[in-house]
């Protein structure tokens, strides 16, 4: 975790009289013998300043303290005991002054058991605040022994399920057992058996035997999702996680509990037994299901997408994402994806052609199109670069342009009512006005009256948005790029197969104006190409303007030309994006 920006200690006013030193907001402590200065207060799970804990201080000192129940975005529970560390505080004399060693350094009193002064007594690093002069020993023999003992106790009833457990490979219990645990089990009694494959909800399966009772899932669903659906039932070794009624753990954020579960207790029904996690290639990307633009990691193997997982971005989605967005990836691998360029020739119907033929054909048609006879409908699901290239085409023909508004229901946490991932991109590039879809009726009217003879459609089925098949039949030229076949692609004169966002790179601008980039995870099927690639060629053919043929260059050029993106650069976007004024 990186240190949050805190206000620096103010220098004392330059007065002659020795002013009392200003209250410092930094504390000097020692971690593993090395002195560091850490902020007195650090943000807690809600971002409110709270006294810095030993765990946070250790993280600042680059010492990872193992933990299960602690999660930076959840309230602290302190029940797993994994983060126990040995520590010491400056010893105080009866006069409330620190006792000094012979060499003048403060004497440190290590924490010990009250009636056994030779036995070290650890404290849980996640919930113990630091104090000035404190010394933390994250690598001392006593700390190591505590970790070993806690792990041994956690493993007493843990089954040896690793070969069939989906969590294997990203399991904290596996990792810490290797790092901090014992090589062999001393447990000879029969393990307590608990229910396996319990149906918690429509998307979650629970294996009670594997649970370490860290209560992360309970805290998440209660405090983050606001649905107090989970709890612990039964006593002692028979403690189990349960939903308030069978299968009722069904809010729209349940799959986050699978991510935060440190072991394989909560598993996703969708991902269950699909692929082992160590085969997965992880690509930084964005969720496209609504305007929030949650940061995600796409897990793919051999050109197949297996799962989406949220990626931390405190400016957008913290570390969470909704279930509906997470499971909205299956269309990417659909068998009926558009894979070939199509060109309709009067007598012979739709022909499969190669890219050069299709682009040449389109360029020839557009070259002869008079001004104002062209209209463009570009989806707000296209990337900003693609929309910008389309706006260049529009400028050349003085064309009417628009996007399609897609409104649904939002919620208080992450889901936005705007179901387009890039509505603001469409607005900023000038493809649409402030109100998406306001021009669609004008375009339909233009086609009806015959003033619009050429229609360029990107990523939308316009037959569902007021430009019916009868109107499309009136056009001289209908150029359509899409990912999946629909009524518009069926009526098109030119079909250009495009890419899903996981198959290309680009940027989206979310509802709050955050410009975020996403990376390519898998190859596109068949002949499908990223839209910006062929749009770049098309713009060159039609307008004669040559631009950058890389996505980085294209973005930088767009930022240079579009006032809304002034000062941005592809490289400056980083992994978490930059907010622009909208």
């Amino acid at each position, binding site marked *: 975790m990186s240190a949050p920006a805190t206000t620096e200690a103010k220098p004392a006013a330059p007065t002659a009289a020795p002013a009392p030193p200003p209250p410092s907001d930094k504390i000097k402590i020692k971690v593993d013998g090395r002195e560091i200065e850490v902020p007195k207060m650090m943000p807690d799970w809600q971002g409110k300043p709270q006294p810095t804990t030993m765990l946070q201080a250790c993280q600042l000192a680059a010492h990872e303290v193992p933990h299960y129940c602690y999660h930076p975005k959840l309230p602290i529970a302190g029940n797993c005991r994994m983060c126990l560390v040995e520590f010491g505080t400056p010893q105080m004399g009866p006069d409330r002054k620190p006792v000094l060693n012979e060499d003048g350094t403060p004497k440190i009193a290590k924490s010990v058991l009250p009636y056994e002064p030779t036995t070290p007594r650890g404290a849980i690093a996640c919930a113990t605040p630091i104090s000035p002069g404190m010394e933390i020993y994250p690598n001392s023999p006593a700390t190591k022994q505590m970790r070993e003992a806690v792990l041994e106790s956690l493993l007493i009833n843990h*089954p*040896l399920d*690793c*070969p*069939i457990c989906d969590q*294997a490979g990203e399991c904290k219990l596996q990792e810490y057992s290797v790092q901090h645990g014992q090589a062999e089990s001393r447990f000879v*009694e*029969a*393990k*307590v*058996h608990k229910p*396996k*494959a319990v149906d918690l909800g429509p998307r979650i399966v629970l294996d009670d035997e594997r649970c370490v009772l860290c209560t992360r899932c309970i805290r998440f669903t209660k405090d983050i999702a606001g649905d107090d659906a989970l709890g612990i039932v039964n006593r002692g070794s028979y403690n189990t996680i349960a939903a308030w009624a069978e299968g009722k753990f069904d809010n729209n954020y349940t799959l986050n509990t699978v991510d935060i579960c440190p072991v394989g207790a909560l598993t996703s*029904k*969708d991902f*269950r*037994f*699909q*692929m*082992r996690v*160590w*085969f997965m290639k992880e690509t930084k990307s964005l969720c496209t299901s609504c305007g929030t633009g949650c940061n995600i990691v796409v897990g793919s193997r051999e050109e197949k997408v297996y799962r989406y997982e949220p990626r931390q971005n405190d400016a957008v989605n913290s570390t969470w994402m909704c279930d509906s967005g997470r499971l909205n990836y299956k269309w990417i691998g659909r068998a009926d994806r558009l894979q070939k360029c199509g060109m309709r020739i009067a007598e012979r119907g739709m022909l499969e052609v190669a890219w050069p033929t299709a682009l040449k054909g389109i360029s020839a048609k557009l070259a002869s199109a008079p001004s104002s006879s062209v209209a463009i409908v570009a989806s707000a699901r296209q990337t900003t670069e693609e929309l910008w290239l389309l706006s260049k085409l529009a400028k050349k023909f003085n064309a009417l342009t628009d996007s399609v508004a897609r409104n649904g229901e939002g919620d208080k946490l992450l889901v936005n009512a705007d179901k387009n991932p890039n509505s603001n991109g469409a607005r900023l590039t000038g493809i649409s006005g402030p109100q998406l879809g306001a021009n669609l009726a004008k375009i339909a009217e233009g086609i009806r009256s015959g003033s619009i003879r050429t229609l360029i459609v990107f990523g939308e089925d316009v037959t569902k948005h007021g430009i019916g098949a009868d109107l499309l039949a009136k056009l001289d030229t209908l150029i359509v790029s899409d990912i999946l076949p629909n009524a518009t692609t069926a009526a098109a004169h030119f079909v250009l197969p495009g890419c899903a966002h996981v198959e290309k790179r680009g940027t989206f601008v979310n509802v709050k104006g955050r410009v975020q980039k996403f990376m390519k995870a898998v190859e596109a099927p068949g002949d499908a190409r990223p839209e910006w690639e062929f749009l770049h060629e098309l713009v060159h053919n039609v307008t004669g303007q040559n631009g950058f043929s890389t996505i980085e260059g294209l973005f930088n050029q767009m930022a240079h030309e579009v006032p809304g993106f002034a000062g941005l650069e592809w490289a400056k976007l980083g992994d978490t994006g930059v907010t622009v004024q909208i």
Partner: protein
Amino acid sequence: MIVKRNELTWFERLYLPALIGGLKVTSRHFLNTLTTKTPVTQQYPEEPTKVLPGYRGAPYLVRDQDGATKCVSCQLCEFVCPPKAIRITPPGPTGKPADRTNAEKMPEEFEINMLRCIFCGLCQEVCPEEAIFLKSDFSLTGLARSEMIYDKEKLLALGGTHPGIQKWKHKLDEAKEQETFPVKV
């Protein structure tokens, strides 16, 4: 340490007796081979080769004593396989339930490309279920490349049975015992 050399006797120093002695051994072997008294060439493939225990031949899947597939599709062998000869299709959430009681999953498909396999034995070493073993077959032939990709059925048929402790079944029995009260341990 200094080893003292024995002085050679005058007979040994003659040199010729040792030479003649050596020639006698050589000619004896030469004659024996010539009269096929001691064969040095094995007539493979007419004469089958005897494979010693511990030999690392082709890897096959095995069944347990109940005839159930032992593999649980953990894909560790696929991961460790240096020439990437193994390819496993996991069952997914809707796959067929495992043959073995309580094992939760087994591979939907398990393929070994015997043209790629280098018989290194890492799959056998890494297997947590003792489900794959290097058997004694070393000469695998086929008329097409596709024939050399052995699927799950073929691998199981070639592998035979290999009894084990049946840990998943054992676990279920243990769990069932705990359902009655007082718990027997």
